[in-house]
């Protein structure tokens, strides 16, 4: 059994900001069904270009859910430049640490953030096609989309 911190458990059992912002300003989707983890992040900006609201949906293990929840809490009130600097280590630190085998689950949050910002800035297609998004299996997001459609 994984050694999760109390804070990780709390963010898993009571995740903050679950959902989808319909009139989002930015959206980022990363992950792989193959490794049991996928994350969809949406955010809305306020008039000062700070993140007013952020929501996530996660298909994933407890640490993926907790990491997503933590990330959405952490980025609220930040400018996009500030949010872009949040690393997966920051997310893990916020949770009081993650088991090392589970560190990559927090990478997803960071990657989703990056993509959501790119979307907002109109750079969305920059490096998305066939990008390897999951360390576990080397599965690309194209494959995921296909898998979702095929198996859905």
């Amino acid at each position, binding site marked *: 059994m994984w050694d999760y911190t109390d804070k990780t458990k709390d963010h898993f059992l009571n995740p903050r900001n679950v959902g989808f912002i319909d009139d989002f300003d930015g959206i980022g989707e990363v992950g792989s069904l*193959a490794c049991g983890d996928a994350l969809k992040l949406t955010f809305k900006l306020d008039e000062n270009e700070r993140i007013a609201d952020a929501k996530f949906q996660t298909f994933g293990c407890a640490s993926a859910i907790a990491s997503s929840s933590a990330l959405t809490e952490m980025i609220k009130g930040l400018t996009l430049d500030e949010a872009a600097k949040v690393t997966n280590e920051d997310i893990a630190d916020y949770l009081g640490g993650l088991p090392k085998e589970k560190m990559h689950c927090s990478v997803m949050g960071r990657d989703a953030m990056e993509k959501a910002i790119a979307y907002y800035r109109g750079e969305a297609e920059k490096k998305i096609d066939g990008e390897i998004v999951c360390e576990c299996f080397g599965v690309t997001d194209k494959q995921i989309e296909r898998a979702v459609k095929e198996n859905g």
Partner: protein
Amino acid sequence: METVYVDNNATTRVAPEVVEAMTPYFSDFYGNPSSMHAFGGSVGAKLKTAREQVASLLGALPEEIVFTSCGTESDSTAIHAALQSNPDKRHIITTRVEHPAVKNLVEHLGKIGYRTTFVPVDRQGRLDLDFLYDRLSDDTAIVSVMWANNETGTIFPVEEIARKVRQRGIVFHTDAVQAVGKVPIDMGDSAIDMLSLSGHKLHAPKGIGALYVRKGTKFAPFLMGGHQEGGRRAGTENSASIIGLGRAAQLATEWMDEENSRVRAFRDKLESELLKRVPASMVNGDPENRLPNTTSIAFEYIEGEAILLLMDQHGICASSGSACTSGSLEPSHVLRAMGVPFTAAHGSIRFSLSIYNTEEEIDFIIDKMPPIIERLRQMSPFWREGQFA
């Protein structure tokens, strides 16, 4: 909070009767059964009884039982024995859905120069028997097919395969770790040469197992050293645990009917109610040929670890994939071999019951599962998409 334990394919409660049988052999009758004094010798007599009890559960002869330290050791011993006694043969056949104790070993042997064949299964987890029979050759040293799968409970036609394999003069081994104690076994009327079992799957303690080796089967020890177990397994006999396994074998005989009636009925109720109450859920495996205590249910679009941890909040203990591999992040190799889609494989939960389960526990699980699944699906980015796909 009460624990509701439905993870008996991972490990079982040691029966209090077994603990009672073992306890005197720790601090009171602790002598070495191989010793030349009555104090140790009397333990030797108890081991003889235990060997008879295990033999009797299998319909075997006492001298066909070799005690080992676990199911994994039994599997390793069987495969090594076949390879060592047939040094000219370099081919091993097994299946794609074996426990890692066989699968990882055969994969390793493949890397060091053996030729290996992994027989595929269909979407229901049924073996492709023609594929297997076609691959039998004069170079085949051993065919190893599990009796029942630990994740889905699917029972394989090992007796039928063993007969075909024997006709070709090839050794047949079965990993019966999940079958022993759950379904009747009679080696007296069988073509199987070797059979593995593990104590902790049938209410004996962890750290004790046995390998059945048919009289006349060529054998070579895996653990070398002292002359214990008739030279077939070295190391001071684990007397307390062997005695416990003997008692557990006796209990398994007594409990066999209950396992196949009451436990089966509970499993069936759990399964049909969950399928009814939870949309987009389905059973993994062959519903026709299945262990009476096991059901593997795929809850689509969500992930197994998250489900287990929420179940854990209610004290419900189950498993996703096999416990051995749950440390890893990959979806179960068994479900992948069956072609279960990733969205379903990831959210598959194995419920495995035992005679200790009560109807209240089953009802409790039936009550708690649907909201857990619903809650996680609300978080899942695939759930809505899935519904409309």
